[in-house]
């Protein structure tokens, strides 16, 4: 099966490795390159649980669901408990306040273009949910643009409250909550 004597090659020295790196200019102008811009458009169903959650947001209310088996209360809602595999069909209305589990201050867009005003994504734990049940949203209503200025206003563990769009502007979307802002409430 072996071809000749099995060889022990040392971890490849540079001369043995292949793969030609191109400079950006070469890539875009010098070598044969074929472009393709597909039009990928999708229609994603919100589904049963998220559909009802979005209905709630349109009314300015945050709904969660409770698992009949483990008792966990989560939001955004889901149709079944992924831990117990039981339906999560006991709906509870939660308050629109919560706690910052973690946050970031993001200065670039997804395609790495600089943002003048940073986005402040955060994981928010809504009051009334089980421990460590948070979801992604944005923090706002905070002055300043630098890391220092924003960190002076926001910290992990800080209480926050949802800032809603005006009722007539709501569409039944996660963005019906504009962002969460410091509530000034003491924990």
């Amino acid at each position: 099966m072996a071809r000749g004597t099995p060889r022990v090659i040392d971890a490849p020295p540079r001369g043995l490795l292949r793969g030609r790196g191109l400079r950006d200019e070469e890539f875009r102008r010098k070598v044969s390159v074929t472009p393709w811009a597909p039009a990928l458009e999708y229609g994603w169903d919100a589904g049963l649980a998220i559909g009802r959650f979005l209905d709630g947001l349109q009314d300015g209310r945050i709904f969660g669901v409770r698992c009949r088996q483990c008792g966990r209360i989560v939001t955004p809602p889901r149709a079944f408990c992924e831990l117990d595999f039981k339906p999560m069909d006991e709906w509870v209305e939660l308050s629109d306040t919560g706690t910052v589990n973690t946050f970031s201050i993001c200065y670039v867009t997804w395609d790495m273009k600089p943002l003048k005003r940073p986005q402040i994504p955060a994981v928010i734990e809504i009051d009334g949910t089980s421990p460590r049940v948070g979801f992604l949203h944005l923090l706002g209503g905070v002055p300043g643009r630098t890391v220092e200025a924003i960190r002076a206003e926001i910290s992990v563990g800080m209480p926050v409250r949802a800032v809603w769009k005006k009722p007539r502007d709501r569409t039944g979307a996660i963005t019906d909550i504009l962002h969460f802002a410091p509530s000034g409430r003491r924990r």
Partner: protein
Amino acid sequence: MTGKIRRRVAVVGAGMSMFVRRALETGRELSYYAAHQALESAGVRLADIGAVTMATAPDAFDGVHMKGEWLLDGAGGARKPYLRAYVGGGSGVFSIISGWTMVASGLFDLVLVVAEEKMSSCQPHPQGAFLTIFDHTIERPLGPNLLWIFSLEQQRYMQTYGIRNEDIALVSVKNKRNALDHPAAQVAANLTVADVLASDVVAWPVHRLMVSPISDGAAAIVLASETVARRLTDHPVWVQGVGWALDTSYWGNRDLSYPRYVEVAARMAYEMAGVTEPRKQIHLAEPYDPFAYKELHHLEGLQLADKGKAPEDLAAGRFDRTGELPVCPSGGLMGVGNPIAAAGLMKLCELFWQLRGEAGARQVAGNPERGVAQAWGDLMQIGTVAVLGVH
């Protein structure tokens, strides 16, 4: 609990392409470079190979739908039992698990394992493909990008344990420096912590030099059954244990300061390998380091450091190439580069070379006998682990 292993499986060859920002070569050609080198180093021909397993990340990165099939001939899969093994970013290390099942089960004696990524095709930025990982209804409308989840997780890790960004920047410094000795490296550099912290804040607390690059590249290994391995080489490197675990995509619903799914995967692999005291019995580690803090996070999940204490160990030099537990002696994703699946398999190539004493300038001292490699992925939910050793 894991079942009894039927047959022992050895790594008998390894190969790589260069890791570069933009390759002239197609993904198939990069795969060929790595696969051909792995076969050569094992001293076997493609005709000897019973089956081929291929790891490669989402199709939209290369821009080739069903790219497992497209890459097939470059991976040596023509007219053979061929399989694409895919668990997101964890695929590179999962590829050896996939190949291991084929050999351990007795189905094949020689299996070629290949991993490839060509991310430079994706314009204007591969993140365009990654965006759809976020929930379409309740996350994407917020305008997220990939950096968010990493910076959110790093922040929670730092806050929980009182870790400073200086401690995390040191991972970039160590790995980029280690990579100076890696012939395939894309972003090796001699930097200081101050340099890392002086680089732009992309998403605080993450700075630009704490992020691995976009890369094109491939890696490959050859797996053999015990009988065949002993015929081929006096220095087989055994796959002693494998493990993997996935959590849900409800990433906001878990403790972001600790990767429990990595622990589950590690415990599975350690049990199979007979490792009861990982810190004593594992001599080098290649944890997944797409972002600087991830290396520390994963070392804790791998039970190689106490929770929240990996940064202290790093600062004390424990993870240097000359330290008690060399970590990412290859240079890791931060230094060698991050062609996603290929980066994971590169870590197993490194263990193979290190455990055979063939790593040249990168060789760690003390004749290491056992190492662990780990990969991770998607919405902070995947852990794949493999333990390799000389006995």
